[in-house]
């Protein structure tokens, strides 16, 4: 048996282990890993997330058990102090000795602390490990008590420094980034893109100081400021140093391996050091005179080292390491690839800059205009993957290369199709799956769904960033084989939602089993059941009580299931208008059942922590006080948010609250493909954020402006204008038709914003249908909507009054006992579920 010792348990050290155990199935190798930090490897790239949740576990690459399960001996908190190359053994700081056959050095780097006078003062930190962050958090907390407006500086405006800037902002301190160079992210950005990024960062509250050389750090014991020039001082009470990295190459030095002049252990393309049994990977490896401070090249080195040790000698490190990166920095897309800055003698640059939207795009093409050499994207990096592929594969560039980055009239940049990629193009970089492999899986192996392709090729199973590209590839390949790519709900229904909707309507089918027997096959599933339930509700307005076992989890019990299996209760508060009497009633009931209460984003009150059997009792009391269900659990109208409007506001142009209440009561209870929300603002100051809703009204001189298809959520979208200056009646008529049309034609779980995006003809087409009645269906839409409005009933009232429906609100069918596993802990005078481990 051979022993492989890995020194260092960072991201690259971990990746080595992962790749190693994936390749070695026999028991011929023993893997021992030493980590200096007190915990197993974690994701240092996303370190700033630690400030959001302070959950070190969430950052772990794999839990400690993973190492044990895979037969790896992991020793954390144990530094390797010495290598004896002659006898092939190492000695740890606690004087233990271990023999090795192969030694892999993955000790990474430490933060570089520049020799500035005063760096030893209290309040000066480096940004590298979770322990560093914990120290900062404790210091910042004390600081804020003394001075709530305290400022903190970050020395270094590179990638990590800006991440640290975000961390400082999250700690509630005023962040100042100080950079020696005249631009931000000097390794990735050119001067102009740096300016665009700077504007954006300043707009969200980061202060940026460029071209500043720090002379000394001021203060007696603790830092009070930084001095740049004679009269140039920045008062800060905390400083985080992020001015670069230094390889942790002590072991290489002490054991006499060949070193670089400025540090780093020299390796060849097999990742071997000058001692052939010793490998070096990651940020200590000096390859082609360079240290690569990015995680992707580190992972590649780990793969090479694994293959070399296992004697697959063909795998070697590429000559030119791809330093392309794409990241989200404080919510801002930043990407650079290939040669981001190119001298004019080598090619031409095409630059698109729009400071009003904080956008910058630059591509560099060869002098003959045929090849893409590199580029920079700031503000919007959606084109990165495609541009990166064109660069990597040397694909031809359009005659006018500006088409690659300029918005076209259809709203997207014009790349040909994904099918233009060469077969060797790596589409999923996490699992190294090429376009050729993916197309083969479809063509030769007959896989047709994303699920099967993922299983067969492992593509998309890593970070998932390649999913859109893989979907396109599958669909395009299927098309090229002459197969119709048909939208279908699931394996039980060969129809799209719209087709099924028409079937239910035309044939008047009202029962799920009947629908499945006559138009589907098999026994249904958790995908098609809620779709059918939603269609029944949209057409016949039946409540979720009637066919309760086909409803989505929340609809079945008319409440939102929460983390610990308890439920939340949300009564309707139309337009957000609530009387003191109602508030007292709600407060009394919440107190009686010991519920956690919170104001929601939709201007109502959410009461959490109700046990299943309590729900009918709570609702009985709420209904007696005049409340009705708020349908917070349904794919249906949630709320219509309003500002106070002309009834009170001195700027108000119209009664936004009255209108919002009328609208909310009109659409309440209506089930749709996904949830939908509305907003009404009394003037263009837009306090109700109506343009962030599925439909919104804004009062202007002469009537309402109607906006549709906006939403917040994962992909925020502003609503677009449907009609201007219309009266109340017309406004309602247009929105009636729009909603009904959306309900009939959208795919399952598709919000209005995506629906509009996919709708051929876009907003102009919706206007044509809704206002000009180009399809001749306006009358019918009006009637269908009016039917839903007229037949509304409160489904909770129905439930509490019917003993048969009520009977399901019990945890056990054979016992009156409660679920003893539900546990709460206290939280700011209220309660919350015990956190998940």
């Amino acid at each position, binding site marked *: 048996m051979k022993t492989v010792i890995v020194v260092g348990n960072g991201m690259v050290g971990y990746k080595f282990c992962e790749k190693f155990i994936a390749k070695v199935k026999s028991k011929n190798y023993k893997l021992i890993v030493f980590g200096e930090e007190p915990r197993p490897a974690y994701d240092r790239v996303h370190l700033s997330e630690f400030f959001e949740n302070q959950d070190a576990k969430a950052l772990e690459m794999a839990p400690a058990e993973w190492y044990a399960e895979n037969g790896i001996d992991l020793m954390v908190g144990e530094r390797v102090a010495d290598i004896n190359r002659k006898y092939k053994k190492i000695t740890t700081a606690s004087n233990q000795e271990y023999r090795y056959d192969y030694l892999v050095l993955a000790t990474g780097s430490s933060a570089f602390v520049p020799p500035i006078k005063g760096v030893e003062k209290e309040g000066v930190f480096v940004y590298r490990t979770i322990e560093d962050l914990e120290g900062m958090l404790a210091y910042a907390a004390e600081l804020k008590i003394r001075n709530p407006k305290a400022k903190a500086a970050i020395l270094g405006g590179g990638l990590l420094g800006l991440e640290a800037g975000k961390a400082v902002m999250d700690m509630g301190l005023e962040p100042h980034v100080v950079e020696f160079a005249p631009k931000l992210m000097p390794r990735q950005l050119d001067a102009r893109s740096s300016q665009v990024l700077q504007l954006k960062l300043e707009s969200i509250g980061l202060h940026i100081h460029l071209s500043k050389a720090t002379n000394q750090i001021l203060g007696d014991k603790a830092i009070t400021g930084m001095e740049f020039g004679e009269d140039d001082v920045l008062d800060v009470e905390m400083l985080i140093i992020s001015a670069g990295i230094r390889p942790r190459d002590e072991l290489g030095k002490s054991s006499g391996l060949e070193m670089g002049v400025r540090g780093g252990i020299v390796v060849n393309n097999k990742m071997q050091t000058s001692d052939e049994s010793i490998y070096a990977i990651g940020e200590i490896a000096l390859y082609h005179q360079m240290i690569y401070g990015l995680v992707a090249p580190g992972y590649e080195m780990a793969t090479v080292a694994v293959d070399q040790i296992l004697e697959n000698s063909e795998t070697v490190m590429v000559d030119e390491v791809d330093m392309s990166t794409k990241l989200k920095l404080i919510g801002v897309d930043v990407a650079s690839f290939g040669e981001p800055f190119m001298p004019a003698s080598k090619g031409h640059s095409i630059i698109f800059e729009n400071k009003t939207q904080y956008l910058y795009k630059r591509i560099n093409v060869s002098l003959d205009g045929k090849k893409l050499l590199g580029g920079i994207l700031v503000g919007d990096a959606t084109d990165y993957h495609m541009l990166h592929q064109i660069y990597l594969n040397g694909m031809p560039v359009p005659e006018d290369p500006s088409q690659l980055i300029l918005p076209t009239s259809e709203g997207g940049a014009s790349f040909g199709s994904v099918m233009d990629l060469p077969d060797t193009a790596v589409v999923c970089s996490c699992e190294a799956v090429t376009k050729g492999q993916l197309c083969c899986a479809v063509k030769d192996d007959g896989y047709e769904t994303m699920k099967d392709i993922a299983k067969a090729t492992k593509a998309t199973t890593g970070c998932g960033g390649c999913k859109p590209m893989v979907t396109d590839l599958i669909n395009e390949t299927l098309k090229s084989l002459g197969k119709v790519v048909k939208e279908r709900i699931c394996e039980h229904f060969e129809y799209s939602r719209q087709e099924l909707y028409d079937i239910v309507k035309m044939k008047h089918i009202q029962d799920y089993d009947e629908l499945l027997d006559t138009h589907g096959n098999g026994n249904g599933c958790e995908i098609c*059941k809620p779709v059918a339930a939603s269609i029944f509700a949209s057409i016949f307005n039946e409540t979720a009580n009637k066919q309760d076992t086909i409803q*989505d989890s929340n609809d079945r019990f008319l409440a939102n*299931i929460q983390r610990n299996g308890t439920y939340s209760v949300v009564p309707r508060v139309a337009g957000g208008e609530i009387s003191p009497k109602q508030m007292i009633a709600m407060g009394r009931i919440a107190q009686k059942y010991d519920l956690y209460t919170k104001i929601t984003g939709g201007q109502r009150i959410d009461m959490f922590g109700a046990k299943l059997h309590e729900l009918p009792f709570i609702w009985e009391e709420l209904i007696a006080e005049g409340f009705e269900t708020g349908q917070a659990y349904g794919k249906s109208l949630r709320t219509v948010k309003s500002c106070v409007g002309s009834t009170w506001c001195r700027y108000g142009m119209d009664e936004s609250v009255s209108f919002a209440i009328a609208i909310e009561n009109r659409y309440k209870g209506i089930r749709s493909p996904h949830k939908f929300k509305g907003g009404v603002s009394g003037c263009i100051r837009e306090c109700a954020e109506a343009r962030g809703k599925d439909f919104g009204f804004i009062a202007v001189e002469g009537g309402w402006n109607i906006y549709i298809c906006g939403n917040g959520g994962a992909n925020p979208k502003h609503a677009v204008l449907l009609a201007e200056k219309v009266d109340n009646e017309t406004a309602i008529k247009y929105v009636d038709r729009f909603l009904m049309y959306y309900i009939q034609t959208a795919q399952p779980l598709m919000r209005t914003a995506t629906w509009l995006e996919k709708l051929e003809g876009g907003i102009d087409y919706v206007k044509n249908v809704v206002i000009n009645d180009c399809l001749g269906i306006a009358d019918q839409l009006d009637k269908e909507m009016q039917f839903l409005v007229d037949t509304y009933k409160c489904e909770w009232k129905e439930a509490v009054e019917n003993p048969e429906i009520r009977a399901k609100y019990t945890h*056990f069918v054979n016992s009156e006992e409660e679920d003893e596993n539900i546990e709460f802990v206290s939280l700011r005078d209220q309660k919350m579920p015990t956190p998940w481990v």
Partner: protein
Amino acid sequence: MIDSILKEYNTTALEEVTVWFKAAEISKFPKNGGACVKYKEKQIAVFNFTRQGKWYACQNLCPHKLEMVLSRGMIGEDVGIPKIACPLHKNTFSLETGENLNGTLPAIATYPIKVEDDFVYIGFSE
């Protein structure tokens, strides 16, 4: 603490059954849906798969976040395999083998079940 609860649930084969626990009348279980039965310290999810005329029993505990919720999920079928979808995150498990069908979670324990004289019985080996 709840970790140890996971170990309380072990798949029981029909031939291992030593106790047939009389759980409840069949009318207590919704058609094509589930409900939860208490047996000693255990919580068992029972599903009435009316469409197929079959009954299934498994642990009520979802192995993902260790909450007692599976009985409130939706049942269905994945290429012929009867399954339960957890109401919390829609992880699906085979009602026959307990295997996680759309991920790599540990399998859930399943138990033999029978109906006699309009009563549902669940089989245990302890």
